[in-house]
């Protein structure tokens, strides 16, 4: 399915030149910028924001990795260099509120930037979309997802890492879908296997890959759709489903994609 929608996207620099400031900064993240599958998530969120005229901007080429994988790989120097560079840019634009589709960026910006001089109100897109819903700005229609069985795979850095379990589930319920919990969920949610810089290396020797272990829960819950809220989980869960040759019966979608597609955007 080709995506021909024209997106309205301003950069902070564009707005600055016009003397304007957006309501939020959309932090796209490296996966959301470069990974082909994750770019679809990025575009979906932008479609939603465009459809209800949320005034947002991106940093564009001025954005750089938050440093999360460097920090978790043990390279604190590189992490802090990345952090300070980003903080200079963000503070330069007087950014107050940030929304991101990546729980790793979310966690780092929210929890690890403040003591380095970067204090922002940071939200994961599931939280922001829920807020828009509550304020009555966003309507969720559900479309073809109505009545579908959907399981949510909790991202570690959204769930256990930051205690947010409800916002993603509220969105799924709003689709009028049937939320089916995986056996290991919420505080006991099983990692997809990509956190802590694992995304960028082969796993250590073991008996099984972690995303394949996760497929046991998926096969037990038998959902039509596995919903994710993280670009790395997206990769791992998609690979897991492929490994089990279940691509035809189980689809993997990000929350933003479910809402955008349900609203026929």
């Amino acid at each position, binding site marked *: 399915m080709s995506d021909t929608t024209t997106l309205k*996207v301003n950069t902070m620099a564009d707005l600055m030149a016009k003397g304007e400031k957006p309501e939020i900064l959309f932090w796209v993240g490296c996966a959301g910028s470069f990974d082909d599958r994750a770019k679809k998530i990025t575009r979906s969120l932008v479609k939603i924001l465009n459809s209800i005229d949320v005034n947002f901007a991106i940093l564009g080429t001025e954005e750089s990795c938050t440093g999360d994988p460097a920090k978790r790989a043990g390279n604190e120097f590189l992490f802090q260099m990345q952090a300070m560079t980003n903080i200079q840019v963000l503070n330069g634009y007087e950014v107050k509120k940030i929304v991101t589709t990546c729980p790793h960026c979310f966690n780092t910006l929210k929890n690890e930037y403040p003591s380095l001089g970067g204090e922002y109100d940071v939200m994961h897109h599931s939280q922001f979309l829920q807020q828009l819903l509550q304020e009555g700005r966003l309507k969720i229609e559900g479309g073809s997802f109505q009545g579908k069985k959907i399981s949510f795979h909790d991202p570690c850095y959204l769930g256990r890492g930051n205690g947010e379990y409800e916002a993603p589930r509220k969105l799924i319920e709003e689709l009028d879908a049937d939320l089916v919990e995986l056996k290991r969920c919420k505080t006991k949610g099983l990692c997809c296997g990509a956190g802590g810089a694992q995304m960028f290396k082969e*796993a250590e020797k073991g008996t099984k890959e972690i995303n394949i272990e996760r497929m046991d829960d998926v096969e037990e819950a038998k959902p039509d759709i596995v919903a994710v809220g993280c670009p790395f989980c997206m990769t791992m869960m998609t690979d897991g489903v492929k490994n089990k040759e279940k691509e035809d019966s189980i689809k993997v979608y990000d929350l933003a994609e479910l809402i955008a597609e349900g609203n026929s955007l």
Partner: protein
Amino acid sequence: MGLSNLLFILIFLACVVWFTINVRKIRRNILLGKEVVINDRKPERWKKMFMIAIGQSKMVKKPVSGILHILVYLGFVIINIEVLEIIIDGIAGTHRIFASPLGSVYDFLIGSFEILALLVLVAVIIFLIRRNLLNIKRFGFREMLGWPKTDANIILIVEVLLMTAFLSMNATDQILQARGEAHYVEAGMYPISSFLIPFFESYSSSSLIAIERGMWWFHIVGILLFLNYLPYSKHFHIILAFPNVYYSKLEQKGAFDNMESVRKEVEMMFDPAADPYAAPVEPASEPERFGAKDVQDLSWKSLMDAYSCTECGRCTQQCPASQTGKLLSPRKIMMDTRDRLEEVGKNIDKHGKDYSDGKSLLGDYIQEEELWACTTCNACVEACPVSINPLSIIMEMRRSLVMEDSKIPQELTGMLTNMENNGAPWQFSPTDRANWVNES
């Protein structure tokens, strides 16, 4: 004062002194760790300790072992009121000294101790069955073979013996009370031990007195020895669980600390006023090591974590790496930290403060392969019933590997190079960052 009172006082004092010496050693060992100041948000800390340690809120996340554990925990805390009476009786040569001042309250207390003793007995026997007969995966990991398994069984068997002695003591006591033997004041309520009367009824009063005294001594000396077993055992958690929860991290689990030593250097690089040609300032003290290679490089809180661990394995059971057969087990990280710390402590006792045995936690106890298997998902931290943080030790060791020894999996070197060169973990040009806007 009789000979037996004197003997009791001597045993009691010896056990208290022995215990104090060992606890002070553990305290010294914990303080070998790096200094961190934890004295903020006190009301929150008390609340957390009340919920998690006193209230056992995490224990019941696994209902079977959780509820059984609460029985043993309550039994331990409440039956210890009885121990106070036993100690006073032992020193003063009295018998059931609380009986007359407390009156019917005493009857109620003894009655509830008996019921708790039975519940403890049942729980501990189920624990023994779970440990030794049922094939429960979390008790079977490689770090549990040998001493840790024996340690667990010793604790459980001692608890069986102590509770049996307590109930037998009460059974014989009440027969002697009924027979109107001198010294055995009529007091107490014995809902459980009265069922044991048939076993003892046929004995003469003098044999019963011997049995009662024997059980009394066995029970109290057993408790004093068990107290002194704690510092050598994982069972020390019954003491450290409380302070360990109190001092645990209150920030979101996803938040990792930013290293101060690094911040200073990075800030200098970003300071436009800094003179790049200035001679480096001589550090006032020895330069700090990045991350942790040995136990002394860890914070004292991580070392307290190690002494608080009772090896239940809930962390390892939840760990995605452990579940998929990787070498990493968060419980092993904690056990290794304690073992190494004990070794360092013994070295200090034997050879003095500055002795080095050339060994280290990283390398001699924990392997790189274990550390790199971690996904930093916080499942272990979430699972721990006493708020131990194995992840913080893993992270400190990764920092040491990367920043001190440049030992890092090759693929991660690539990722870091990409980040340095183009601000992304993959090899994409930063100028292409917003290409998604116009792609379809």
